[in-house]
């Protein structure tokens, strides 16, 4: 069991994606009189091959006449034909399977199974990871980051109408354990903090349309990333120039310049928060704190040529594993 769970986790990590699944009518599950029908895979997706298998402890299925109909058309009959395969349709389009089992010397048993594939994506975002204004990329989580997961169910009825996601009941799981306190009607998002001991987390959710019937579930695995400092120039006219990093060094030809250190993915989002400390050195000499803390304004006293090396260390007094270091070389021309 333990190895199975590990293997499942590895599979999820390998694909690294939110898994889309299905919606299915409750009639498929469990015993139907003396019969039960297993659905494989358990969470069929749209346009996916599905296997149905009849099981019974009371009926001798091996000698029974079994027929399968797909959307009203008989497609498979025979003695002992306990397995039936078909392909699901698009999301929201139901497939109806009629099953008739005629045991020897007994009355026939008929059942109807309806499968309506749906999907559910789980989006996630690091809600307290720093990125600069106008940044078009994703804020990534670092150790102990706060993450928000948002369920995006794609459940349609038979007429193709998308079901209202606000009218659903959400059941969230964290590392496969149900989090009852954060589950419930309309709770389409889920927030938690990455533990200091883990760099991977798996979150899942099931969305059930209020009133029953259609449902969908999904699962996603996240990991933590390393924060980093990227250097830019800033000026009263332009402000920080986030499209032009000077990480590779900068040729200084003017008397004054200001460098801007952007701690990508640092936490908290406010990079000037009091729990972040900035330690600057210029050519290995420490100097007083800057205001604002992430901008270093420099004045050139002489026109001597050479290199000036700036070092910066950013630490979070509340998150001990978060430390950012970077250096920048200025070439005085």
């Amino acid at each position, binding site marked *: 069991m333990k190895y199975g769970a590990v293997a499942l986790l590895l599979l999820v990590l390998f694909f*690294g*994606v*939110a898994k*889309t699944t299905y919606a299915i009518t409750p009639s498929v599950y469990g015993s139907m009189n003396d019969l039960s029908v297993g659905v494989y895979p358990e969470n069929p997706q749209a346009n996916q091959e599905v296997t149905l298998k009849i099981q019974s402890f009371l009926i001798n299925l091996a000698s029974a006449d079994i027929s399968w109909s797909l959307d009203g058309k008989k497609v498979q009959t025979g003695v002992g034909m306990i397995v039936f395969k078909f392909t699901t349709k698009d999301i929201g389009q139901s497939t109806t399977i009629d099953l008739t089992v005629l045991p020897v010397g007994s009355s026939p048993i008929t059942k109807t199974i309806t499968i309506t594939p749906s*999907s559910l*994506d789980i*989006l996630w*975002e690091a*809600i307290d990871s720093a990125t*600069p*204004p*106008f*940044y*078009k*990329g*994703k*804020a*990534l989580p670092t150790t102990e980051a706060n993450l*928000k997961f*948002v369920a*995006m169910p*794609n459940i349609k009825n038979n007429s193709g109408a*998308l079901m*209202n*996601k606000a009218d659903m009941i959400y059941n969230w799981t964290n590392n496969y354990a149900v989090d009852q306190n954060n589950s419930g009607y309309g709770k*389409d*998002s889920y927030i938690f903090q990455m533990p200091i001991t883990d760099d991977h987390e798996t979150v899942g959710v099931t969305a059930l349309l209020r009133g029953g019937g259609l449902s969908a579930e999904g699962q996603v695995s996240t990991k933590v990333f390393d924060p980093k400092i*990227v250097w*830019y120039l*800033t000026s*009263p*006219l*332009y*402000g*920080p*120039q*986030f*499209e*032009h*990093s000077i*990480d590779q060094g900068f040729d200084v030809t003017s008397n004054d310049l200001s460098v*801007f250190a952007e701690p*990508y993915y640092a936490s908290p989002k*406010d*990079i*000037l928060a009091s729990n972040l400390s900035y330690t600057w050195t210029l050519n290995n000499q420490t100097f007083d704190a800057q205001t*604002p803390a*992430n*901008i270093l304004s420099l004045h050139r006293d002489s026109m001597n040529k050479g290199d000036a090396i700036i070092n910066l260390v950013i630490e979070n007094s509340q998150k001990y594993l978060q430390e950012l270091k970077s250096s920048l070389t200025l070439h005085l021309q």
Partner: protein
Amino acid sequence: MSTKIKKLLLILVIGVIVVGCYWFFFVMNNPNGGGNNTINSLKSLFPYGLNSNSTTGNNIVTTNSNSVSTSGSGTSTTPYDSLVQLSQRPVIGLTIATPVPYTLASPVSSTTTSATSVTPVVAYRSSIFDKTNLPVVRFAEHGTGYIYDVDARGQYETKQTGTTIVRVAQAYFGDNGNSVIFRYVKNDNSTIETYLGKIVPPADINSGQFATISGSFLPENISDLVMAPDGKSFGYIFPVIGGVSGLALNTDGTNKRQLFSSSFDEWLLDWKSGGLTATTKAADGVPGFVYLVQPAGAFQKIIGNVDGLTTNISPDGSSLLYDSSDGDKINTFIRHANGDSIKLTVSTLPEKCVWGKSSNVLYCAVPTFLPASTSYPDDWYQGVVHFQDQIWRVNVNTGVAVMVSDLDSKNIDVVNPILDSKENFLIFRNQNDDTPWSLDLRPNVSSSATTVPISSPFPLLNVGQ
């Protein structure tokens, strides 16, 4: 010093001045002449307001139309370069503008003579369009927010507004360039301000005054903004408790309405005639999703689970250009309405591409190489890596791309590509230095294509052209 020597010196000084003036006005001001490079080098020394093609403090182009061409036949003999730098100014946003026609207090009347009649025609001066009959590119300058117009060949640059907005970092144009949305970061380096303004031409173009910008601020910290396809409204994402609201507003500040609400914050919007899409912000190795935002606000998935996903939907909404990234590799695809995806024969980021109006052609700026050991699109968004691009035309049905221009092997990293209405010109910004550029896409064009007849400096045209 004798009087004779003084006279000689005086004559010499006057001669030098005359020759200097001649050189300045008749050589340097000739955009087709050999003095063009000299102008560029001078501009770079004086990047603000000393463009010799315009008069400072005046929105009327003062260049003498006779200086457009030095040849008597009205045609230039210099080689025609389809690629031109429109301005040396750093820009933060650009559009193809149709400026409000300037109606003269006493409209210029001219006559068209035929064998039997004389028909009076009223001519309007629609800024520099009248001079060139070329599309007008309107752009906003980085740092100052000054708005300029320039023709698609970069011959006439005219300052339109004098309202200074320092630190301005983004500009969006609507209403054919007659509305503008400025975005900048306040001095705290975190709060985003957004200002919506209408560009109001001066009542009298002979007054020498600039157009003014009249408008108001929108709520702080709008995270993303997109113009509607008709340019008369725009959508934006505004933070609310527990998530974001997607709102729309007309460019005149009226008709505010909700497009959607979401518990998820990190959306990027794209709005074409075929619909509004919301794509999750991208990072290398992180699965992304794109949804079609339905009129009622529901999100209908188009594609998902694509690492590093960025997108660009076609104007009619039938095709989606998207990419997937894997470290320092980018794969670019077109997904059609039937669900089929085809891989392009070139690799680029969708935001470096622009669709033709009919959605059947795609122009893409394609990096000549992708620096190794990088993460896309993250490192590009962070300004850590820059590209040197070529322009390719992509067959939307097959994904096969054909190179249109190598951009003269210049160090150009294309962003904000747009096409003029006839799809003759590709206009874009070079992210490496933020300058605006134009590529003439017309096949077999020659220098005569942009020649302006000396005898007719203001071609006749209809209102609104």
